């Protein structure tokens, strides 16, 4: 399988705080990699760096072989059309309706007619169980709905790579399940993804492999079976049980 995403000795520092010391991992085509780690250990920064929202202080980040760390803002546009980032809190444009939020990437990057845009958005809203919310402002949506609209907006351009930043955090079990189904459905379409989460059932449901981020490094990476074959004291089980490393 071809490597789609590759982190090579990635380092990132904010001021005097070294968040990432030496992060290396690979995500293969069509794979969903779960990225787990304590709060504040730098999971979001990894995803942000992958689409060039943060610049690495060292190491390389390759997306389909291209080094995004050295790209200019205009070169990054092509990467960003391919790689969708699902923000932790939705990051909806609060001056626009749900419809306008979804239309935004379509108007910016496609030549679709207004008819086609409307059809596409309505199909997307239906897929996310959001029909009839076209003209609602984001502030008037529940948190779970905002998250779903954010997800819908991120993937409306049918990206090849999707980065999920805790898409199920704070959702009720029903909505969590819907998001899991959505991610699995995208996977069957061949989407490669990184799934950042604290939600273990979801991680086990959708991820092919799981990586543990700790102290600025990938502490362990593998399939669930690989972890479990190491016995009850494997790093993943210890993380899940909330034990000190």
């Amino acid at each position, binding site marked *: 399988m071809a490597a789609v995403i590759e982190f090579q000795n990635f380092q990132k520092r904010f001021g005097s705080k070294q968040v990432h010391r030496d992060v290396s991992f690979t995500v293969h085509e069509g794979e969903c990699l779960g990225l787990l780690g304590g709060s504040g250990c730098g999971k979001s920064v990894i995803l942000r760096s992958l689409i060039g929202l943060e610049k690495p202080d060292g190491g390389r980040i390759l997306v389909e072989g291209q080094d995004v760390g050295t790209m200019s803002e205009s070169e990054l546009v092509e990467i960003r059309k391919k790689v969708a980032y699902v923000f932790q809190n939705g990051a909806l444009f609060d001056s626009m309706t749900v419809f306008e939020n979804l239309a935004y990437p379509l108007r910016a990057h496609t030549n679709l007619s207004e008819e086609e845009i409307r059809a596409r958005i309505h199909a997307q809203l239906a897929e996310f169980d959001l029909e009839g919310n076209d003209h609602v402002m984001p502030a008037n949506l529940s948190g779970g709905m905002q998250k779903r609209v954010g997800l819908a*907006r991120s993937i409306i351009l049918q990206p090849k790579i999707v980065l999920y930043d805790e898409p199920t955090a704070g959702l009720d079990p029903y909505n969590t399940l819907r998001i899991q189904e959505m991610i699995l459905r995208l996977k069957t379409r061949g989407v490669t993804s990184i799934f950042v989460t604290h939600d273990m059932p979801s991680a086990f449901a959708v991820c092919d492999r799981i990586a543990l981020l700790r102290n600025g490094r990938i502490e362990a990476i593998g399939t669930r079976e690989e972890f479990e074959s190491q016995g009850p004291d494997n790093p993943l089980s210890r993380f899940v049980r909330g034990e000190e490393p």
Partner: protein
Amino acid sequence: MIRNASTALGGRILSFAHALGGAVLLFRQFLRELFARPLLLNLVGEQVYFVGVRSMGLVFITAVSTGMVMALQFGLGLEKFGGKLYVPKIVALSIVREMGPVFCSLMLAARVGAGIASEIGSMVVTQQIDAMRALGTSPIKRIVVPRILACLIALPLLCVLGNAIGILGSIAIEVWELGLDPIFCFEKAVTTITLRDYLTGLLKTVFFAFFISVTACYFGLNVKGGTQGVGSATTMAVVVSSVLILVGDFFLTKAFFVLFG
């Protein structure tokens, strides 16, 4: 003590230089993306409405009261020396050359500068600016360029309006309080002002429009630390652009005298 004060001063100077550099970089990005396709003229139109049309009331009140106060002050002062007849001339000239442009710009710095800085700042805090970039679009193109252009279009027009209303306000006082003839006042005002007086005043507002909009966008985009950061960015935007207007006014006046005589 002295050491503390000097490190504090050094820090201040450094952060000032940092902000200045950042604003210059932002201005360069503005120039680079100004004519990049698509032009997004609808966004510019929207902002012209917010900046221009919605500020008309404020400019109206500012201009009319400034004009009236100046006529009253000059009138009462000059009346003692029998110089009442010069009031329409003096007031019209000072409005067109100085008071109109500077007061319009200061009012806009407060109203529009604060609005831009807090709006962009909240977008930063709620990651909407990041979302724009993540969706492969440029916040400079969509947020900064329309706001700078809108200020560039609206401020000179508001100044034209402010000048006219200020002069009308001053004429009202010259007639009511100083007992001058309205036709005389109007004629004096119109014949005193040369095109050069008028245009140098307007040209200043072009510079002031940049001061207001670039400063506000810069502080908005560089908000750090949540909602509190939005508040201090807004304050900084208004303070810095007002100071730039007042200080810049002196240098521009001087430069225009040298350039245009």
